């Protein structure tokens, strides 16, 4: 049996009166990459925020390594080994790259390991080493994304929550970032919960995927099977069969099967 590092059960999360998550359950097995796909406003980010403690669910449970963590403070959750890489990178713009990375290791106590991890991070992201002493605000978007991931790595997380790492990046950079994510998973054994709008890339690197619509999961399966699903192809991958008129603008109804 596969061991689940993270189990989310029936969570309901609200923004004021608005119910953003209407009962979501999902599992992230240890050592795997699991992806959540969905359109704008589906509730993807809310799932990550609920896991990392930034938001509290009104209902349901979040279990991380056998401990229920729903409703805990985000800093405590982070100390348990969950690193949240937020959407839009959110690096500290006025601090240098090196300082940003130190912030990632803020909660750690063993000094020795930090230095080694910095080496490891620079190994994955050589460009960060080149720019180690520049202010993070002057980095390009792709570099900031790398820094955000690197900063999270510095916390030595067992689970990394990645919120749309491809946002606003050029296709080449997207590929580069995803390659690194894949390597980090393989080589460092970091389990990942990846939220993405770039369904194609996400399904390439993840093992299992969930599709979220309006706060509810409508479909889930192994990624190689999701890639074959007619609904995923049409609504998430933009694959269109040649229509009689050469192009087809209307969409068939979603069935999620």
């Amino acid at each position, binding site marked *: 049996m596969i061991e689940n590092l993270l189990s989310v059960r029936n969570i309901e999360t609200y923004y004021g009166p608005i119910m953003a998550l209407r009962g979501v359950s999902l599992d992230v097995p240890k050592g795997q990459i699991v992806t959540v796909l969905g359109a704008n406003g589906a509730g993807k980010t809310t799932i990550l925020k609920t896991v990392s403690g930034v938001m509290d669910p009104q209902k349901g449970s979040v279990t991380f390594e056998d401990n229920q963590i729903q409703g805990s403070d985000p800093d405590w959750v982070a100390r348990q080994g969950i690193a949240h890489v937020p959407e839009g990178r959110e690096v500290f713009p006025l601090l240098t790259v090196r300082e940003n990375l130190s912030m990632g290791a803020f909660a750690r106590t063993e000094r020795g390991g930090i230095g080694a991890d910095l080496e490891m991070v620079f190994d994955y992201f050589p460009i960060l080493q080149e720019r180690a002493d520049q202010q993070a605000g002057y980095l390009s978007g792709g570099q900031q994304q790398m820094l955000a991931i690197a900063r999270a790595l510095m916390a030595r997380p067992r689970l990394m929550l990645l919120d749309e790492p491809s946002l606003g990046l050029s296709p080449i950079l997207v590929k580069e970032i995803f390659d690194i994510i894949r390597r980090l998973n393989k080589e460092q054994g970091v389990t990942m919960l990846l939220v993405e709008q770039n369904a194609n890339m996400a399904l390439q690197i993840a093992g299992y995927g*969930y599709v979220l619509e309006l706060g509810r999961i409508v479909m*889930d399966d192994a990624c190689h099977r999701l890639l074959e699903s007619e609904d995923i192809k049409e609504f998430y991958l933009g694959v269109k069969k040649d229509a009689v*008129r050469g192009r087809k603008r209307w969409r068939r109804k979603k069935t999620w099967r």
Partner: protein
Amino acid sequence: MDGSTGSIETDGVVFDGCDTLPKLFRKRYVEEADKIAMREKHLGIWRSITWREYGETAKDIGLGLMSMGLQRGETVSILSETNKEWMFADLGAIGAGATSSGIYTTDSAKQLEYVVRDSETGFLFVENEEQLDKYLQVRDNVPSLRKVIIMDLEGLRDFTDPIAMTWDELIETGRRYGAEHPAAWDDRIDGSSQDDTAILVYTSGTTGPPKGAMISNKNVIFQMGTARTMLEFHEGDNQLAFLPLCHIAERGFSMFLSMAYKTVVNFAESPETFAENVREVSPHVFFAVPRVWEKFYSGFTIQIRDATAIGKTMYSWAIEIGKRIAEHKIRGTEPSAKDRMLYRLADLLVLRNVKTMIGLGKTRWAATGAAPISPDLIRWYMALGINMLEVYGQTENTGVATANTLIDFKVGTIGKAMSDTEVKISERGEILIKGDHVFKGYFNNPEKTAETVIDGWLHTGDVGSVDSEGYFKITDRIKDIIITAGGKNITPSEMENQLKFSPYIADAVIIGDKRKFLSCLVMIDEDNVVKFAQDSDVPFSNYASLCRSSKVQELISTEISKVNKDFARVEQIKAFRLIEQVLTPEDEELTPTMKLKRNLVGQKYKELIDSMYQAA
């Protein structure tokens, strides 16, 4: 047993001085020109359409078709959702002497091909790009088609094809033709006769390919007249059109009866906004299929569970009083003065709000038909104070043959025969219907016609009975009767209706023909079961895992046990399975009115069904 009632008039059928549908239509758009005929929501605002606009647009459509050589008696087909253009195109075609045939938008390209070929359609209206694409896929197989008219051009600005023309072009052509031939339209209308086939209605066909039922002007006019004796319409009443107009029920209610009784038809925007539209329109008179009445009820029942303790107590108090009063009404007895007073209070404090919440605040009467309904559901609506009338009929008799009325009604029956309608039970228990609403026959299918109408009696295929007061009751479809391996005859629909009364069961099919025991396949009500799962912390990700979860299985099992209690030992449902896929009307297992098709379900889920009998 012979329960024939009513009498047949022999001196022709006339309504409001008109003997055909086009003549009555003309009378309406001339005499009622400035009154509102229909409303449609456009960009969020309800827009009124007068009889003048209705008439003139239909006329331009009809003339446009005539200018392209439409002959009297030719078929025009309409492939569109229910909207005002549907009605314009329909009456334009019928006015021009053609036969109008509706095609379900849920039909596939192949089904479209079949219907267009079978009906020998010359002109086809398509709603939009999506429907147009269906035609384009099969265009080579339907050479009889001369012109395709596109109603909504969105996304098709650059599309050109010699066979296609736009709605506006058709109207423009019609106007020009009308200017050149000022008498052409009226000549066609004057030349219409009672025997013309006004509409062709393809029956959903649970067995074999669909057949086109030919409904004549006489059928329609007769049906308009008989409706007066059973239903009470006031001029200007609001009603809501939302079912497919291809279906005889919606066509009859929203087109024929609204024309006859000058009511206002309001078009619902889409299935998604249906509930909201009901509240906005607040119809005075309301026809819907049982599925809709079930949905209102289950939606409300679930909502009340989340109400405050006071709210719940108030509701159960009020509905109990409502039920008591309803029982008196049903039995025809007088409630006590105290009960009457309590009811007034209950209505003021609770029941009125419940009705308003659903959108039935102004409803004088509601009607249900086209499928069987649970008597308990009718009682609930009656307890709210809504007169819920069950009617019965078929496409082949233009909609209604028997009906409960505001004066004569008996819950659990389909009412008495309508005026000038003979209804009787044949020796083998089949319900037979005779009257001027019995159709002309199936288009190009004399064999099937001969099997269906014998000596003027329409053989309905329904088994039923009649009581001493003349109220008819349907047991089931003849072909649906189950004979178990033990030789016991079982009529499944009564049990199925009881199952559907559960808020968690959307539809169910009982199985057991030539089997050792009864079992059933259940389609869950997704919204309500999801809510149940959330409330009781049942983890699930998708529909299938929801169906498979043990708590949901238990829930349905409990619901089935409740129904089992009401039935004899041989009629117990001993096993069940859930259909683990969300079904939509596009799926062949469902009719356009969201009923499960017994035969198809039996074939498609054969393995699942067999598994129930292997396990036992």
